[in-house]
């Protein structure tokens, strides 16, 4: 049994509008989730259902209003303590990468912050570019010189270079073409085999999510209404909302 990386217990996140309280909105209500090493949990739901909020909680970017988040079996602590252990890949790679830095420099940055020595850094950057299927030539290119799929590979390389234990993919393939999407999904699965990270795959595209995930959690109005193995989503899932999502795949 592999170790649980991220564990959420009774997480509640409340957003308050306006000054001094105002109207409260519960974006996430009493959510329990766990993600193990080497496992991908898919998180699907419509806009405003709380997917991204939950992703931010898992990354430690947002402190929950109530509930406990544990990372690797211990309390999360501060972001500084967790440097290099978790990472994120976002939807728009053209905004996620600094347009004025060469791709190699963008990927190297996390290692500089971790205090890795220069020759070691160079080796790891070369290795990771190789792992994501980009040759040496791409290290010296600017993000603007790459296609969408190649740029997303660079983002994944940067997320992976510190060998994190947990990665959040927030709509990471939604902006890509069908054929490129398949390449990137296959890449994510291959890299997980190699590095064994746990992953949270957030998307509103059920087809891509069930392909890449081991388990899928369906979120509806801030609650997880169904949490089942992906195979369930090739047949008939239990919750009416999940069935509604499935109908768009028929």
């Amino acid at each position, binding site marked *: 049994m592999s170790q649980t990386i991220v564990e959420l217990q009774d997480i509640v996140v409340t957003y308050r509008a306006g000054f001094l309280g105002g109207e409260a909105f519960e974006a996430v209500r009493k959510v329990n989730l766990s993600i193990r090493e080497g496992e991908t949990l898919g998180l699907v739901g*419509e*806009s405003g259902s709380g997917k991204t909020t939950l992703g931010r909680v898992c990354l430690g970017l947002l402190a929950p209003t109530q509930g406990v988040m544990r990372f690797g079996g211990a309390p999360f602590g501060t972001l500084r303590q967790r440097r290099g252990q978790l990472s994120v890949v976002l939807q728009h790679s053209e905004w996620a990468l600094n347009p004025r830095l060469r791709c190699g420099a963008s990927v190297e940055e996390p290692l500089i912050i971790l205090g890795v020595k220069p020759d070691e850094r160079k080796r790891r950057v070369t290795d990771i570019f190789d792992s994501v299927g980009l040759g040496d030539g791409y290290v010296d290119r600017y993000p603007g010189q790459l*296609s*969408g799929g190649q740029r997303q590979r660079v983002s994944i390389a940067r997320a992976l270079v510190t060998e994190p234990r947990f990665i959040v993919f927030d709509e990471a393939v939604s902006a890509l*073409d*069908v*054929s*490129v*999407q*398949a*390449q990137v*999904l*296959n890449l994510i699965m291959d890299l997980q085999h190699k590095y064994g990270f746990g992953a949270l795959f957030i998307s*509103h*595209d*059920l*087809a*891509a999510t*069930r*392909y890449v995930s081991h388990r899928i959690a369906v979120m509806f109005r801030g609650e997880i209404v169904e949490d089942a193995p*992906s*195979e369930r989503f*090739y047949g008939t899932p239990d919750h009416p909302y999940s069935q*509604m*999502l499935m*109908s*768009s*795949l028929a």
Partner: protein
Amino acid sequence: MSALVEIRDLVVAYDGGGGATRGLDSAELYVASGETLAIVGESGSGKTTIGMSIGRLLPPEARIESGTITVDGVSVVDVDAEALRQLRRDRLGFVFQNPMTALDPTMRIDRQMIRAIGGKPSHDAIALLLRRAELDDPERVMRSFPHELSGGMAQRVIIAMAIARSPKLIIADEPTASLDASIREKVMDTLGRLREENGASMVILSHDLRLVSRHADRVAVMYGGRVVEIGQSATVLEQPAHPYTRALIAAAAGNEKPGERLEPILGAPPVLRGPCRKCAYEPRCGLARPECANSRPEARLVAARAVCCHFAEEVVEATSDAGEARTE
């Protein structure tokens, strides 16, 4: 059925650093009146170029080098500015991918609707049009600025504008790509219903094959600036005759069984500097043979659809075998 749009031998080039590239390489297409045609393909295949050329809505760096575009009897390539304006205003309706960039952020919806309808429409006329696009609370929508609407609502406003003057043709460029999966179907249904009420034709540009299979009568698959396969949706998508169509279907998540691996299309679409004298798909095609690199396949009829491939019969046969194997 008569042809509403007829595109013949169209060549469009984009000027840019390092010389011109071809967006369309002798593309041919016709749209019958009353039908829904979907154009699918990867980014860079030319689907947006061909869709926008129907209204001559191409960016300034694009040049129409040769060919003809006839829309409802008007020759779009050489018509004067005033007649083109009239064509766009009275006979074409456009729905773009991102409603938030298509709407003017500084103007309330009612004022934008007045501009789309033209003249001095009454308050009720605007509300009625919004209601036809299935917006439940038109009063609130009319008072709103675009940023106060959700993506789905904004797209419905765009749809209302597109049908405001009862166009003969609606051109929808990725109409639901920026929307949530759960409302995509509903928005497409609205669009389809309004098309039918107007008796208009519709051209959908999309890379979502599932959406296309449900909402389009015919599908045109584009590659390298040409239509490489065109026919009834069910025929083309269930039994493709072009290797590229087959690869597109195999790469899309949704039809695989649990544990099955998707097959991405390796390599990238070609960047054409001039006319392509071979099969543009040849470098990426698993079935490629010497002929493919030497002669350009022309469109011919194979198994009830037009296809540009020297070996289309083999592809059809291979896919029907695979289909039978699956049903066994």
